[in-house]
């Protein structure tokens, strides 16, 4: 395998995504845009917390930390996942390039990953800004945080891996629907938001829903991220949680390779790589 060629391809695809996303404006405005949208979402939750704290007279710093980290960190996963899944729809329906990309890029799965990478970068950027602002707004003392940098890096990589592989599987499914591709990506993002320990612990969910939450590695990742940012945050046994996350990530990677190969083959069988609605 020629690593140089792959890096060239990766660079070109990331550049394309940057141009596609930001081409309508100047870079500073674009960066403002990618931060403002999730930022207002955070403001909404922070305001809800402040109102509850004000009227109840109870200031729960742990709850504030849970809420702010949940909403901010979700943005990293959500932005990347959505960007990756949307690629199939935009390439096929809007740009009409999917068939040419399919012929030019030696591996469609890696192409989608490269396209998603840029969205993870912008997601990480807005997550960082939201996190800092949110913690300040809700009165969480930043000085009490004790960051575990190595664990944080490992978790960011694992987060990218499992969520992008989930995105690959959803993107594979969306090949079969010209119409509902974007809807599928939004639905998956919504499920992760509801079942991923973003706003509330999984334990607060009804018993019959919890097994569905366990299908996704989101809870382990989210809890460990909270722990990596503040080691006083209680996650029980972090090693056990990390083990579970690694195992689920491996399962997702293997499943994505098998599933995507299957969907790609089926798409060729049905002639769907060029299917458009002409809208």
């Amino acid at each position: 395998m020629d690593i140089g060629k792959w890096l060239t391809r990766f660079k070109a695809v990331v550049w394309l995504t940057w141009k596609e996303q930001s081409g309508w404006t100047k870079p500073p405005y674009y960066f403002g845009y990618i931060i403002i949208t999730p930022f207002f979402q955070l403001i909404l939750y922070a305001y809800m917390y402040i109102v509850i704290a004000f009227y109840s007279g109870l200031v729960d710093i742990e709850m504030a930390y849970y809420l702010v980290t949940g909403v901010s960190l979700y943005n990293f996963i959500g932005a990347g996942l959505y960007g990756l899944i949307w690629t199939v729809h935009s390439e096929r329906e809007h740009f009409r390039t999917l068939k040419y990309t399919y012929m030019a890029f030696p591996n469609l799965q890696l192409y989608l990953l490269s396209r998603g990478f840029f969205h993870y970068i912008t997601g990480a950027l807005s997550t960082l800004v939201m996190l800092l602002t949110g913690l300040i707004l809700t009165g969480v003392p930043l000085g009490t945080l004790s960051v575990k940098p190595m664990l944080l890096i490992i978790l960011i990589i694992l987060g990218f891996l499992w969520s992008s592989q989930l995105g690959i599987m959803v993107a594979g499914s969306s090949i079969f629907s010209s119409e509902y591709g974007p809807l599928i990506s939004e639905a998956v993002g919504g499920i992760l938001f509801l079942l991923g320990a973003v706003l509330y612990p999984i334990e607060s969910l009804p018993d019959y829903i919890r097994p569905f939450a366990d299908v996704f590695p989101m809870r382990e990742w989210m809890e460990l991220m909270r722990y990596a940012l503040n080691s006083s945050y209680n996650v029980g046994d972090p090693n056990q949680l990390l083990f579970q996350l690694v195992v689920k990530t491996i399962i997702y990677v293997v499943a994505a390779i098998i599933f995507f190969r299957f969907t790609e083959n089926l798409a060729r069988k049905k002639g769907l790589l060029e299917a458009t609605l002409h809208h």
Partner: protein
Amino acid sequence: MAMQTTIETRDLVRIFKHGDEEFRALDKVSIEVPEGVIYGLLGPNGAGKTTLIRILTTLLLPSDGDAYVGGYHVVREANKVRKIINLVSGGERPGYGILTVRENLMYYGQVYGLSWRETKKRIEEINELLHLDEFLDKRLNSISTGMMQKYALARGLLNHPQILFLDEPTLGLDVQNARHIRRVIKHLIEDKEIRTILLTSHYMAEVEELCDIVSIIDRGRIIATGSPDELRRLVKDEIIYNIDVRLSDIDRIRILRRFSSVVGYTVKTRQLTGEARIRMILTGEDIARIIRTLEEENIHVLRVSRDEVSLEDVFLRLVGRGLEDEYE
């Protein structure tokens, strides 16, 4: 020395299913394309030309049969096939509209694995061939159809493909742009820029001008294969006549079907002049009687001329209807 076969299909079948209905787009298609030629697939819309190209470019799987491109199996060795081919389709506007033509080409060059420098150099080479200067730095969403087709051809040449698939490459182009594209296609083979070209078209003149070998395809079946001269010889025993009549009389020309000597005819209307041209294949010198009958039916014959056999006549002779006639 025998020429090497670069594209080969054996009993290729493709069936599309829509609910309970089945449509056989390709029906046991077998072709052999030697290296160094422009091979044409001539047929009307819906004949199966694009389906065949989609299979050969690995975008679609066949329902049955085998296909090889550059010696590689299109199903089992699809990745190897993709490395040595490229595809240019007419009548489409694929690409990233917000990027300039140059940026689109730079992107695709690198996606094919060329370095930034190699891509830049390659674009210069292609520019010399296609004369893209006037729109190279324009956004893709702002260029005309003719420019778009030149861009598509440029993208198709970026990776130095051994085999180039051209699907209706001049579809929707004006005469001047179509002529330029045809000149470039010829040049690509003459200068050995591309080793083999497989071209589909429903423009008879285009196929006659460009192709060394032509297969006539209709309803998913290959009807005949040969050089344009060989195919024309299939109509060597018949005579071709053009009869110009008034457009308003055209409804009554069904009378021609009464004559057993009329093998077939096509009609092309010219709204601007208010005339219609009947192109007719005759088995004998029956023309005087036919003209007389037309005039008896109050069909005003404007001109009558004899003509050379074209591939369209071959198509008409073999299939029983014209290239531009719709399926009934």
